[in-house]
């Protein structure tokens, strides 16, 4: 079976499971919606304050979503004892990419939801460059979530470490994402940085992933 076919099989299984159980949707969507509403209460109600904090709110929400989504990468599989069969069936590379695609899709949707909520509730429509951040920022964070999600879930203790590991490493996505989502900021340097961030994290996560699978 070719690596591409394995990737497709893993991704398809992820989407089938999500369609059947809505695990990620149910755990992530209400969480980030509450996050945005509470951020509005914390920073508002002055329209100028809301407009100033809108972009940062979007990316803070995406960052915390990366933590909850990261828990679903392998945590649920291990709780249901399906992880061993999955690992045995698929090679490490395709397993990483298949899982990554699912996490990327989840984070991309989370970003879309947060952007829409913030645009409406904060009355701050994002500039076009926000889309670049939405694509590459979520890819970088998805790489982190996938690798670190497996790392933490396959341990026997300290599951809460996932947030402590993802949040500091997500700093470039937060800064670049915030700048790309703020109107009238020169987009090019930040767009380059975001793409570089995604490329570096994707490559390194992929490279260390087989070592994380070994027990």
């Amino acid at each position, binding site marked *: 079976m070719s690596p591409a076919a394995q990737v497709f099989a893993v991704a398809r299984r992820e989407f089938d499971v999500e369609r059947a159980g809505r695990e990620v949707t149910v755990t992530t969507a209400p969480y980030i919606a509450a996050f945005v509403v509470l951020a509005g209460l914390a920073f508002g109600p002055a329209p100028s304050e809301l407009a100033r904090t809108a972009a940062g709110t979007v990316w803070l929400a995406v960052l915390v979503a990366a933590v909850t989504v990261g828990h679903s990468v392998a945590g649920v599989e291990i709780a249901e004892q399906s992880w061993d069969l999955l690992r045995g069936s698929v090679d490490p590379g395709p397993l990483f990419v298949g899982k990554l695609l699912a996490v990327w899709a989840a984070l991309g949707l989370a970003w879309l939801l947060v952007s829409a909520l913030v645009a409406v509730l904060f009355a701050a429509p994002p500039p076009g460059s926000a889309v670049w951040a939405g694509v590459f920022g979520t890819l970088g964070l998805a790489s982190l979530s996938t690798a670190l999600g497996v790392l933490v879930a396959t341990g026997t203790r300290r599951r809460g470490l996932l947030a402590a590991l993802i949040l500091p*490493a997500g700093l470039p996505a937060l800064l670049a994402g915030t700048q790309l989502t703020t109107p009238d900021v020169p987009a090019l340097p930040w767009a380059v940085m975001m793409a570089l961030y995604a490329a570096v994290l994707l490559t390194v996560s992929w490279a260390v992933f087989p070592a*994380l699978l070994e027990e």
Partner: protein
Amino acid sequence: MTAPSRATDRVLTVAAASTSLVALVMALAVAPPDAVQGQAQRLMYVHVPAAWLAYACFATVLVASVAYLLTRDLRWDRRAQAAGELGVGMTALAIALGSIWGRPVWGTWWVWDPRLVTTVVLLLVYAGYLSVRGLSDDRGTGARRAAAVGILGFVNVPIVHFSVVWWRTLHQPATVLSPDQTVLDGQMATALLLAVVAFTLAGWLVVRRRVRALALLDHEPEILDSEPVRPLVVTAQAQP
């Protein structure tokens, strides 16, 4: 412990102690107080070497982590762990001293300077690195996870740094000068250089001793050290 490593330890101890002593005299008695910052500036002789040693430790973690993943030799993992522990301690020391130094000089405990932010992120990343070792009961599993975090954390550092630099220049530039942008007087420079050498030697010694302590914890049972036991042979073969 082998004789050569004891001898190296002794040389390192003497060298570190004597350099520290000279550096201490230079820093406290010979070098003049700073014209602007006064006596508080003498914190530099600990702050800068601590930060330097921390960065050297984290670079060691990166090299040792890559080497561990390539060779799967636990000696590399022990080096990575020892360097990581010292690095976290030195980072915390550098941040604390910088904050104490900054208070009288800048009038504030903290500024959003890229170097400071990057250093704090380093502290968080490597505190996570050390925590990851406790995720599993299996020694090798913990080592592999830690190595992965050691590599992921370090490659991310330049991106973190540049993103904070750009973020900072976008808003108003820092109003206070970073300490080492001031031109150093000759005696100050000598004292600082000596302090850096003293910290490096002492750090090297600490890591060496810690690696040996970790090796004792890792001591593998005799069954693996001694002549291998003749294994039991079981063959399952289908009969036609």
